[in-house]
């Protein structure tokens, strides 16, 4: 579904991504794990066109998206929930969700029903300004907003960041639920243990490179990973 072939991304003179290649197949949860600054978020940003690669190619649904304007991706079915949630803090919960359906406004009504079903807490707060929500609620809103665009592939950047353990569990359960409903997910996480538990496959990044890949189970049991990320 998504193929990233050999991309190299620079921030000025800093070589942030080095020959990164990965792929995501229909119906999978693929996790991208690694330490801070390894290049995980940069990879997602390059896929969604906010950064450009100097080499290689990115294809989504068999079409190249390397040079497409970022705002056109959602209508092709690629949604990105950025790091730090980035909900519109001065708009209401419902307005945020409506923005999610900006490219498919006829779907707004069913979309809202679906999102409010999944996240009942958002329904209670639908006329509240998003800035007044808790971190967990903002994460739900960010995910709900992305779902409003009817994506085929959902890219989640650190959905568990800064959340209480019970909420982290809730978010991961939600990701599994989305998968069973047919969604394909590319998940960036620092919480490697949780991510590997739910991922079909995973890639490990280290200073801009992919250094390991395999099924979630394989990586969870690999000694190198245990040592580096799972505390021995």
């Amino acid at each position: 579904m998504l193929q990233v072939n050999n991309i190299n991304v620079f921030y000025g003179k800093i070589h942030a991504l080095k020959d990164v290649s990965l792929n995501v197949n229909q119906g999978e949860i693929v996790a991208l794990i690694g330490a801070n600054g390894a290049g995980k978020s940069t990879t997602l940003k390059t896929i969604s066109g906010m950064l450009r690669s100097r080499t290689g190619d990115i294809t989504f649904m068999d079409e190249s998206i390397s040079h497409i304007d970022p705002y056109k991706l959602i209508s092709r079915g690629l949604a990105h929930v950025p790091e730090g949630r980035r909900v519109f803090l001065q708009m209401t919960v419902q307005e945020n969700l409506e923005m999610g359906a900006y490219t498919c406004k006829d779907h707004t009504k069913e979309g809202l029903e679906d999102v409010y079903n999944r996240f009942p807490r958002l329904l209670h707060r639908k006329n509240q300004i998003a800035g007044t929500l808790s971190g967990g609620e903002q994460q739900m809103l960010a995910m709900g907003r992305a779902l409003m665009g009817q994506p085929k592939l959902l890219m989640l950047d650190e959905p568990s960041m800064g959340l209480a353990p019970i909420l982290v569990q809730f978010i991961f359960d939600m990701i599994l639920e989305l998968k069973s409903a047919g969604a394909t997910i590319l998940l960036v996480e620092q919480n490697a243990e949780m991510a590997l538990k739910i991922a079909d496959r995973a890639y490990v990044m280290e200073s801009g490179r992919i250094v390991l890949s395999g099924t979630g189970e394989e990586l969870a049991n690999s000694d190198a990973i245990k040592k580096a990320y799972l505390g021995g």
Partner: protein
Amino acid sequence: MITLIQALLNGLSLGSIYALIALGYTMVYGIAKMLNFAHGDVIMVGAYAVITSVVQAKMPGVLGVVVSIAICALLGVTIEFLAYRPLRKAASLTVLITAIGVSYLLQNVAQLIYGTEQKAFPELFDSIPTLTLGEVSIEGSLLLTLGLTAVIMAALTLFINYTRVGKAMRAVSEDKEAAELMGISVNRTITVTFAIGSVLAAVASVFYGASYTYIRPTTGAMPGIKAFTAAVFGGIGSIPGAMLGGILLGVIEQMSKTYISTKWSDAIVFGVLVLVLVIKPTGLLGKKISEKV
């Protein structure tokens, strides 16, 4: 008492003009995060467009206003496309200097076409009767200015708060990257913003021309800078702020002219601005924006 009412009405009318122009500054600032110092000169172009279409081409006044609005909208969008869009990722100082350059360019082109002599603005509103209430007489053009500005402001507020495009504008103003992820084209949104701002400037130019009666190539500079002041006064980036700031500025200016001194009115206006900014640096209705890292 009559002097007070008269001064208040004149102040409101002048303030409405400032508010219309200030809206252009504040909307462009809110969405494109730039100060469009060529905005004042769009007023000048709008006024000349009325002169050319009504005085020279002998069009009826209403049609002249429509032509002026269309030309200003086109001008605003063209300026954005040619001068500012290529600088989207440039430093804000570069964009600011470019805006000043565009301002001089417009003034000089106007000078080439119309010369440096002032031109009379057609008397568009003379057919509207003067309203007399006791000893207070209210000119028709003043009533029209107040009424139309109120309608425009109400319409703009509804547009920003309740339409799909209006909401998209708010989304872009808050977070461009997130807005793009929603499928909102930031470029298109900025174009729409410039078009709206320029249409408001064209309307302001008609009222301004009608009350000052003469137009020259540098006409846009003073209302431009006053309206910018009004936008800062009300809190730049805030739409209700620009409305409030513009109207207050007009009233303060007119009151100073009536009760203190015509010569000192500008100094008093800017003095009040300084005072407001000292007490509330974000302006009257401005929000404090904390930079996220």
